[in-house]
C-alpha cells in the first residue's frame, strides 16, 4: 500500500517537508497515517483524501493522496 502525504501552510513548515510517501501494509485508515507521525498535529488540523475533505476514520486505498493542513484562510 502506497500513500502520498501532503502538508500545507504551518503544517508543512512544522513537518519540514511538503510531501512524503508511506509504503506499509499496516495502514488502513487516515488514523493509521496520523499515528505514524512523530510530530503530533494540532487539534484543529484538517484532512483530505484524494482532494476531498476526509476524517480519521476514512479508509485508504493504495495510491491515495492524503493531505493535512490548518484551518483555511482564503477569501
Amino acid at each position, binding site marked *: 500500500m502506497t500513500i502520498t502525504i*501532503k502538508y*500545507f501552510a504551518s503544517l508543512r513548515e512544522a513537518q519540514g517537508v511538503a510531501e512524503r510517501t508511506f509504503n506499509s501494509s499496516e495502514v488502513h485508515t487516515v488514523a493509521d497515517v496520523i499515528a505514524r507521525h512523530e510530530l503530533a498535529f494540532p487539534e484543529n488540523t484538517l484532512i*483530505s483524501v484524494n*482532494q476531498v475533505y476526509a476524517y480519521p476514520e476514512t479508509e485508504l486505498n493504495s495510491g491515495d493522496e492524503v*493531505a493535512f493542513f490548518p*484551518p*483555511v*484562510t*482564503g*477569501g
Partner: protein
Amino acid sequence: MTIIQIQIETSPIATWQLLDEFEQEHLTDNHLIGACSVFTGKMRSSNHNDEVIAMTLEHYPGMTEQQIRTQVDTVIAEYPVDACLVHHRVGEVTPGDSLVLCATWSAHRAQSFRACEEIFEALKSTAPFWKKETLANGDTRWVESNTKNPRP
C-alpha cells in the same frame, strides 16, 4: 445550464476588466438576466492592529478548484443562477491587491445576491487557501482561523 468559471491565478486580478470580458463573451445575448451581484476582497494594510506590508497566499492546487466547484454547485442548486465567476489570487500580494472575486448573474436579484454571498462564505470557510503575513518589522505569521472540516 449555468456557465461556471473558476480560476486560481498568480497574476493580479483585474476585477472590472474580467467582469466586462466575461459578460461580453458569455452573456450579451442573454436578455433574461436581470441581476448581477459581485463581491471582491482586497488585501488590507492592517490586521489585528499590526501593519501588514505583504502577504503570501498558499493553496492546494487541484483540491482548491474542486472544493470551490462543489460549493458553487451546492449553492446554485438552492439559488439558481445563469452564470458564476470566481477568481482567487495566490502567491505574493501587497496591500490594495484584489484577492478574490465572486460574481453571479440571475433573472432576479434575490438569487444573485444570496448565491454570491453564500458562494463567498463557502469559499472562505472551506477552500484550501492559507495566508502568511509579513509585518512592517519583517516578522511573518500565518493568519489563523477556526474553519472546520465540513462534514458531508
